[in-house]
């Protein structure tokens, strides 16, 4: 069936106006379709993210409950870490422990003719006084003290000879 145009042909738009009008119409349709697609895409993403967030939050709540049930263990871990840090501070503190060890090493190697009469242990310094009844013992004592790696510095503070007691020598030793 043939199309019939009932409008007067002289007032309908013609030529380039129709083309521009069609172009704008097409652009309007395309942009509207794009808008719809974008809106749908975003809506889908929004819904998907919302579902994921809800799922993660539910899972996190479960984990929080589980962690709360392990609170005693967590308290223990916090306490262990705290005690270790405190012990580390104490061990870093100066002590006469190394001096006592050094004194132990020296006295364990003394010959029978040498005896310790006095020792004062303080932080970083060990003061000692020995009596050697013969010169051989004195030599051994000197060699023993010098051979100790634990001491950074050894000062011979005093040295005397008493015919009744023997050689009396005092040392001041500093631990490394």
């Amino acid at each position: 069936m043939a199309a019939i145009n009932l409008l007067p042909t002289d007032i309908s738009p013609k030529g380039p106006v129709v083309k521009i009008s069609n172009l704008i119409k097409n652009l309007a349709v395309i942009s509207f379709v794009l808008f719809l697609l974008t809106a749908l895409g975003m809506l889908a993403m929004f819904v998907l993210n919302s579902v994921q967030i809800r799922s993660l939050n539910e899972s996190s709540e479960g984990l929080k409950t589980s962690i709360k049930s392990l609170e005693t263990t967590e308290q223990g871990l916090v306490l262990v870490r705290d005690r270790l840090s405190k012990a580390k501070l104490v061990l870093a503190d100066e002590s006469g422990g190394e001096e006592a060890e050094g004194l132990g090493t020296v006295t364990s190697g003394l010959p029978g003719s040498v005896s310790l009469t006095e020792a004062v242990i303080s932080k970083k310094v060990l003061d000692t006084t020995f009596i050697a009844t013969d010169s051989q013992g004195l030599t051994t004592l000197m060699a023993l003290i010098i051979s100790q790696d634990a001491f950074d510095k050894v000062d011979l503070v005093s040295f005397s000879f008493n015919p009744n007691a023997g050689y009396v020598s005092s040392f001041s030793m500093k631990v490394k």
Partner: protein
Amino acid sequence: MKKGLFTANVSAILIPSVYFLVSIILFVFGARTGIAKISEQSSTLNEARKTQGVLQQKERLLRQIETEVSSQVDVLANVVPEKNPALIMISQLKNLALVSGVTITTFKIGAQNDAGMVSFVDLSYDADGALTSIIPFLNTVKTLAPISTIDTAKINQQAGAASANVRIRVYFAGYPTKLPSLTEVVNELTDEEEGLLDTLSGLTLPVFSTLNPQEPTVRENPFN
């Protein structure tokens, strides 16, 4: 007639242009709002993922150490006790002296010092015995819990008998009062901490005896 043609031409351009403009405005407005919302939601999602990761790691670690942590607490709570450990240390020294062949004659407890992060109390004692016993005794004190350091020691020896006046410093510290936040990362002990824990686990712990409650008994009449 010309006016009618002009109006028709304008209408033919204007009406689709309005549609086009409205579509563009909708597109721009919708896209801007949508992107802002989705971006905000994405950051929430990332935050939720991060929180879940932290919680999973924390739960796994706590389950993993659940069995061993109580024994570690037992050791470390004795190594660095919560309260002044002077009396515990005296007991430890007496026990050690007994097996070392050293006699401790006097004990003196000084005032406690709470100035630093770790508090301490000075404990002085006099010990008698052979020099070969006293020096190893001094060196063994550091293997006792609570943790202590030698402050000063004066040793004298005459006619084969030695005596020592020793001052040691015994340490203690209050327990932590706060737990970290639930969503805060908790890490396992570092190698350094593990090493220190091993060393401290080798210390001799004090032995506590527990007195069990007894049922009341009928007192016998002492005048019968």
